[in-house]
């Protein structure tokens, strides 16, 4: 092959790469456009149906009413208390539940006797739909913040326990053997091999746990509370204020999505050694 044709080929490869990149960008912006289209069509149909008299806005509200309500809620600042309370409950439940879940997951994975003895109890408690415990928690811990934190905790702790346990048990045995051969003792094995190799599992659990912490807080508030987005929902529904219900739902949705993105970013940073992060 002559040098000229080699150079020409290199140029062609670069051009093709550029072309592919541009095509990908175009595809992305087309996708975004379609997404926006779906939203506009949905909101438009909703608005149209309620204004055209097809459906009574008393039952389903409509986008302009919700937008006005949200605007009022944020400009008056009345909603921030509720957002703050819900986030506070979810956050406390999440952190305590995650710490307890990770620690007990490791404990069970590293002490065979402990996991053998406790296995049926863990399975039993984990099978119980724990939101069913909410009335009991409210009875025990009152209608304030504490009962919601406990409910969120009870949801989060088992998710993290199960995931951490699975992660610690799924360590590549070759890594364990080679580390032992290199002189690792039991403690070093846990800290330097089993813990880091469980991190992807723990993160999967944390992401799920975050969603469940929010569920715990809101469900608790819906049952009985003095403040919070769940309280806002049940209170609005109680006075037939569907617009208020939808406003609170939209705020919850946005919060959940933001939290999930935050978690993904943290995960990407911590797991940069992975060739790629699969899915979601």
């Amino acid at each position, binding site marked *: 092959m002559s040098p000229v044709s080699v150079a020409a080929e290199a140029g062609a490869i670069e051009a093709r790469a550029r072309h592919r990149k541009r095509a990908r960008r175009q595809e992305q912006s087309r996708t975004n456009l379609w997404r926006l289209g779906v939203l506009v069509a949905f909101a438009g149909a909703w608005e149209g149906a309620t204004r055209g008299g097809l459906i009574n806005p008393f039952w389903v509200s409509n986008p302009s009413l919700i937008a006005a309500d949200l605007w009022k809620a944020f400009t008056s600042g009345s909603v921030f208390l509720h957002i703050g309370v819900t986030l506070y409950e979810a956050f406390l439940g999440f952190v305590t539940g995650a710490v307890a879940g990770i620690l007990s997951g490791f404990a069970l994975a590293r002490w065979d006797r402990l996991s053998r003895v406790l296995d049926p109890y863990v399975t039993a408690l984990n099978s119980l739909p724990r939101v069913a415990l909410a009335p009991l928690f409210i009875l025990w811990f009152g209608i304030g913040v504490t009962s919601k934190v406990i409910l969120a905790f009870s949801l989060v702790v088992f998710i993290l326990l199960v995931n951490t346990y699975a992660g610690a048990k799924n360590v*590549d045995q*070759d*890594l364990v*053997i*080679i*580390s*032992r*051969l*290199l*002189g*690792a*003792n039991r403690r*070093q094995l846990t800290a*330097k*091999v089993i813990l*880091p*190799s469980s*991190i992807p599992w723990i993160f999967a659990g944390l992401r799920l746990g975050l969603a469940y912490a929010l569920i715990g807080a809101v469900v608790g508030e819906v049952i009985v509370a003095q403040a919070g987005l769940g309280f806002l929902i049940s209170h609005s529904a109680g006075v037939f204020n569907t617009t208020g219900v939808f406003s609170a739902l939209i705020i919850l949705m946005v919060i959940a999505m933001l939290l999930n993105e935050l978690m993904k970013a943290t995960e990407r940073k911590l*797991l*940069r*050694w*992975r*060739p790629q992060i699969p899915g979601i």
Partner: protein
Amino acid sequence: MESLSHAFDIDGRTVPVLADVSLDVAEGEFLAIVGPSGCGKSTLLNIVSGLFPPTTGRVTVDGAPVEGINPRIGYMFARDALLPWRTSLANVAFGPELAGEPADRREAKARDLLRLTGLAGFEGSYPSQLSQGMRQRVSLARTLARNPDILLMDEPFGALDAQTKLVLEEEFLRIWERDRKTVIFVTHDLFEAIAMADRVAVFSARPGRIKSLVALDLPRPRSVTAGRFGPRFQDLYDRLWDDLRYEVVAAG
């Protein structure tokens, strides 16, 4: 090692893997072990490394019995088994880190070893960013980092493509010839065994026994590729292959 026997219990049946293996490896000797698949070569290395005790018999190093894992013995697998969340440098420094060496010392050591194994410039790469051959180089550097007196190698280049394998064999010989550690090198590649070792032990089909033990009178320093087509190499190859072929056929 003396009259080493080992049996595994598989599904309640006792399967003998090694039968009465006795071997004496001199300090600084490069011993290759070849044998058919499943003849207990890897089991032998696992026992010598102290990962588990033999059913009968014993292993001694300098007269002292091997009981449990011994940092004087380095062990390298066919699979690189690098910690995927650690960079090359941190993987090589792992052994010294476990031994409690200070960070600057173990890092300097790891840097030197990566240079020795031809990986200067890849200190910050993660295993997933390296080729198979490079990962095996990191694995070799990691094994050397604890400065073992004895190297156990279980088909260390077995998973590599033919060219990469030749290059790594050549480089390993070069490294070995600098300080002549005792090496027990398991392989199923007879060429590799003859090109590198001082002696070759041919194992029988399971349960593994030593069928023949042949000292190679090839000169050193050697080149893995250059001697390969000489008449002496050919003689040794024919002789060992005669022994080995019979066992491979027997192993099915």
